[in-house]
């Protein structure tokens, strides 16, 4: 465990990603406690540019953008993690079931997975959310979770298939281990990197999608999240009247967590795929070789 952590921290991309994500998580947990404000409260005149009183200005409703940003971070991250857990649960269960049991179970699950993959996600979510009526963040998390597991199921299945053909699995089967033990003791630990990859990717996807749904007017306008901030900004034509802070603040918040999570994911990818990992080492080796060559040349010349 400690060894993995060390490898992880040595990867520059993963480290930067981790720092960004931890920063967001800290803001989400402690921000609202320290601030202790009502983000829906009118604090000043509408569309005030950033000033010492309101650090990030006010919205058209005269609400404090900074307070909304902090409380919105909590909502958006909570939705992301909640939906991420749902996606990973469904995807992993279906993926392992299809890969391990094979046969007709695999046929049915794979077919279903491929169908869900090919139906465009956002239009589908729009239809479901529209029929649900006023959707608060928890409902959005659930519907994103229920419709977005297909990619994870597919990746988990193919990884399970390759593991299934390894000799140690065959050996444990011959010993007569039961399927439950096979799955939880032999397969699951080897699937952890795929599951982690799936989770981080799903959280990123959910945060982006939630913001998009709410921006399009399918969220609950009374809740505070990055998506509803963008929705109110769009409704107030904030950009065209020059109130850039009302738009760019939530926009950059979404972009920032997206960048952090994807750097983290790329790092995990590099760590679990040695071919991608050694690049830095190779470059360093070439550099060192060049230096040695030059030194030798310098020694030979005079």
């Amino acid at each position: 465990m400690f060894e993995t952590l060390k490898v992880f921290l040595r990867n520059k991309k993963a480290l930067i990603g981790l720092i960004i994500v931890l920063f967001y998580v800290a803001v989400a947990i402690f921000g609202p406690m320290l601030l202790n404000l009502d983000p829906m409260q009118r604090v000043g005149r509408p569309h005030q540019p950033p000033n010492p009183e309101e650090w990030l200005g006010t919205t058209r409703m005269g609400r404090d953008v900074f307070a909304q940003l902090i409380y919105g971070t909590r909502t958006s991250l909570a939705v992301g993690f909640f939906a991420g857990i749902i996606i990973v649960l469904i995807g992993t269960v279906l993926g392992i079931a299809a890969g391990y049991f094979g046969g007709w179970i695999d046929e049915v699950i794979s077919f279903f997975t491929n169908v869900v993959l090919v139906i465009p996600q956002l239009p589908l979510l729009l239809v479901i959310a529209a029929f649900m009526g006023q959707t608060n963040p928890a409902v959005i998390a659930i519907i994103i979770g229920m419709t977005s597991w297909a990619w994870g199921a597919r990746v988990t299945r193919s990884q399970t298939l390759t593991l299934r053909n390894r000799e140690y699995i065959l050996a444990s089967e011959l010993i007569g281990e039961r399927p439950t033990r096979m799955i939880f003791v032999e397969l699951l630990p080897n699937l952890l990197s795929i599951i982690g990859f799936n989770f981080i990717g799903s959280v990123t996807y959910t945060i982006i999608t939630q913001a998009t749904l709410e921006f399009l007017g399918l969220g609950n306008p009374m809740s505070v999240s990055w998506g509803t901030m963008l929705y109110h900004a769009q409704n107030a034509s904030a950009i065209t009247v020059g109130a850039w802070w009302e738009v760019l603040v939530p926009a950059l918040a979404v972009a920032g967590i997206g960048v952090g999570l994807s750097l983290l994911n790329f790092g995990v990818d590099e760590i679990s795929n040695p071919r991608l990992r050694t690049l830095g080492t190779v470059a360093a080796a070439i550099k060192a070789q060049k230096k040695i060559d030059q030194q030798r040349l310098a020694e030979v010349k005079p």
Partner: protein
Amino acid sequence: MNFVIRRIAFYLVAFLVAATINFALPRLMPGNPIDVMFAQQNSTLTPEARNALIETFGFASGPLHQQFFDYMKSVFTGDLGYSIRFYPQKVNQVLAYALPWTLLLAGTATLLAFCVGSVIGTFAAWRRGGMFDAVVTPVSLALQATPAVVIALTALFIFGVALKWLPTGYAFAPALDPAWSFEFFGSVALHGLMPICSLMIVFVGGYLVTMRNNMIGQLGEDHVTMGLAKGLSDRRVQLNYAARNALLPSVTSLGLTLGAILGGSLVTEVVFNYPGLGQTLYIGIVTRDYPLIQGQLLIMTFATLLANLAVDLLYVFLDPRLRKA
């Protein structure tokens, strides 16, 4: 040929699933769906309009399976019923006006993103670990993780509002009439430039990273080493030996990302006030025009499946193994 027929059958089933979701959702709502719909709508529709809408959802006639077959029949004959917001227009008419603009936006952006991403990815992998790779790959990762709405809003602010270089809305100058003239197409291109570019920027990163990682995998293969050992030129090994094989998974991901691009296009259109499906849909969502929202799912699914079929055909062309089978 067998492969293509199997794919078409699969797409038919996928479309059927989307249509079934459309059929089931209003019936899963608690209470009488029509009443709930009108309660939220609180509009003043004439009784005829109301009846037409009940007919649209097929609630009027017979038991559930009868309703199901009636609904499927109308969907497969291309009848999506009446729009609430744009009554007495039918959903087909409303969407048919908007769809070409969305296809223009999403199609051009996809093509550009795929080509640019694959080419840059190829070079980044060839000089992996170098300066070019070290800059291009993280930047594209960051762009890929940025939602379309963020890029679109930022572009709108910088180039449309702050610098005033590009128009901030509509598909062409309002004073012009659609015509086969140089002026009209110039105006369309000028208005499309910002939406297309911001949509492209969101998706270029995904193709770039996929291509780069595939290329790196390919460059470790024996046939590449042999190509180099034979003394072939770098360009030849890079493009004909490695890139051609690395392109296959990229093409697969092209098919799978089409839906996401159409979704991104919806959002981009709302930001740029572009008269495509997204803009129409935005009005539909605000006024809770359920038939319109349902119609767009079917149209978008249809467009995605059609594009996937095109990708499958491209795959047959790229992968000789499929041609023989």
